[in-house]
């Protein structure tokens, strides 16, 4: 009987750990959606601007690259929360 209670306790702990990892993974997935939409919108508008005004491509590419990197920081924050909670 004692072995069964220890086994049940271990299973319960494993289930909790799996639940925490699953929740963290889900949160990371959610955190990556926003930056994905943001980067898509940002690059779409930048490509449109470069197509309309090719002479301004250098300036547009500069701001586009920095915009992408700043937006990506949101996904990285989500990733850091994931590694701190889920791993």
């Amino acid at each position: 009987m004692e072995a069964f209670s220890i086994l049940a306790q271990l299973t319960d702990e494993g289930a909790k750990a799996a639940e925490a990892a699953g929740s963290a993974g889900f949160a990371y997935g959610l955190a990556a959606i926003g930056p994905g939409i943001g980067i898509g919108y940002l690059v779409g508008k930048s490509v449109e601007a470069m197509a309309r005004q090719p002479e301004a491509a250098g300036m547009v590419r500069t701001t586009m690259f920095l915009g992408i990197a700043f937006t990506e920081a949101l996904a990285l924050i989500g990733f850091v929360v994931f590694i701190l909670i889920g791993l």
Partner: protein
Amino acid sequence: MSAPDATVMSGPVAGEAVEVRISVDMVKRGLWVAPVLVILAGMIWDIEGSLSAAFATGLVLVNFLLAAGLIAGASRISLGLVMAATLFGYLIRLGLIMLAVLLVRDASWISLPALGATIIVTHLGLLVWELKYVAISLAHAGVRPARP
């Protein structure tokens, strides 16, 4: 407002690869501040913190270079490809960062709080630092700011 010309979309983007120049600048600055970050992390999280901070700094710098390389490579081919390369590049780079962290998570020398904190601080810090120079360049196009 007229739609962009289709021939412009299928041709390469004019001008130099500014992304590469920006990311190389950030990598140079990152290499300058890396020892400070490693020492700071070592003071807070011990030797594991130092090693994790060094790993995280390397990860952020490689991520910047990879992002710039993908966009520059795509813009040499066509403007339309820039869109695809950026979005798939975002997915690939996030996947690579995750893979790199998953590979070392159980290593004895890793400290996850140090790794996470350094990733965020280095990424945002280098961007804000670079933004200062880019803002000056865009506002005064003829003036080249002094390099660090």
